[in-house]
């Protein structure tokens, strides 16, 4: 991939080999520059940690996809070309439940929309040449964003993005293949409980997002909508309609805040960064930057926990 080739040349082209202090014993890879903030090897370590941990879970996707009746080729094409886990699981789940291809793809697409917002933040930080962006775009996902955003310098950000993206891409696709082959060898995947893999994956992706009342209420409303509509609407449609829980909750929260302005609108958020001066600001200000704040907290938290969710 062109962007890989270009970005991995950074260490050699800007390093100053003569001035290197002795690195940590046995420290691998490109020797650290004398930049005080963060040595390259530390960035690479962060990136590899996340990449390896999450890359292995491609196995769960391979098994689930094959168990849902997709062929080996279809399963591998999804991991190669979609490469954003939640969307992939959603697609095969919807197809297995008998949804038509359009509702199934719509659900997967809605889940993929968040990557556009990751891209926005990354593009300022990475400052990639325009020609590289179409290639780099394929790696704009939860994990690469989580590793890249907290990096102190552009160089560290580029290394973090590239190493996470490459590690995850390779492992995710290899483990998808192994999982799909394994499931085919097993035969009746339901007997092995493999139909439970997909809801378990969704729950594992969802859990770290449920940090505040807003998210929990949204999730609860979505579950109620999905289960209520499931018996009466064609497969796939209930899940799509459940997405309405998001605007409904936002609207209701906005109303609640508007009617009780000044009642300290922190909504019990779990993240703790930079809320010190919240109380002195108007309720409107508070709401204004909720999204951005949320995003940062989210990504930082995920990084801390070596988070899942591809």
């Amino acid at each position, binding site marked *: 991939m062109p962007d890989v080739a270009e970005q991995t040349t950074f260490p050699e082209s800007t390093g100053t080999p003569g001035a290197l202090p002795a690195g940590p014993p046995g420290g691998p890879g490109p020797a650290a520059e004398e930049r005080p903030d963060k040595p390259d090897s530390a960035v690479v370590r962060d990136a590899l940690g996340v990449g390896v*941990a999450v890359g292995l879970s491609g196995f769960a996707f391979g098994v689930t996809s094959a168990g849902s009746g997709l062929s080996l080729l279809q399963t591998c094409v999804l991991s190669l070309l979609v490469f954003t886990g939640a969307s992939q699981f959603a*697609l095969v789940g919807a197809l297995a439940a008998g949804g038509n291809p359009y509702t199934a793809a719509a659900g997967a697409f809605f889940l993929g929309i968040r990557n556009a917002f990751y*891209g*926005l933040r990354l*593009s300022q930080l990475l400052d990639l040449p325009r020609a590289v962006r179409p290639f780099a775009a394929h790696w704009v996902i939860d994990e690469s964003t989580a590793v890249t955003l907290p990096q102190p310098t552009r160089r560290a950000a580029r290394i973090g993005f590239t190493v996470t993206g490459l590690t995850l891409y390779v492992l995710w696709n290899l483990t998808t293949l192994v999982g799909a082959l394994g499931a085919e060898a097993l035969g009746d995947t339901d007997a092995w409980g493999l139909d439970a893999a997909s809801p378990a994956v969704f729950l594992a992706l969802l859990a770290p997002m449920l940090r505040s009342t807003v998210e929990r209420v949204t999730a609860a409303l979505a579950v109620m909508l999905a*289960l209520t509509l499931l018996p009466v609407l064609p497969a796939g449609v209930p899940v799509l309609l459940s997405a309405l829980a998001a605007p409904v909750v936002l609207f209701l929260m906005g109303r609640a805040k508007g009617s009780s302005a000044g009642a300290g609108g922190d909504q019990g958020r779990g993240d703790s960064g930079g809320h010190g001066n919240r109380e002195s600001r108007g309720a409107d200000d508070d709401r204004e930057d909720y999204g951005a704040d949320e995003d940062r907290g989210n990504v930082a938290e995920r990084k801390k926990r070596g988070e899942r969710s591809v």
Partner: protein
Amino acid sequence: MNIWTAIGLTVVGCYLAKLVGLLVPAGVLERPLVQRMAALLPVALLAALTAQQTFGDGRQLVLDARAVGLGAAALALVLRAPFLVVVGAGVLVTAGVRALA
């Protein structure tokens, strides 16, 4: 053929979503309401998908081994188990319940 249609649409849609973020000028998607919606949409979808895949059987609601498996996965999550352990717990417990039933 239906499956390939769905795959094709998903490939194109998801790739464009990723690309758009890198290409559009900063500011266009930075409106607070848009950002909050983007953060909440996955929450709603994932919750709905979890429920549907656990309790749905075609167009019927059922309570079967998967619910027990999901409970095990939830317990693993509470114990901060790694991703694969969470999924493994869900699968193994579901299989166990089916084998006993």
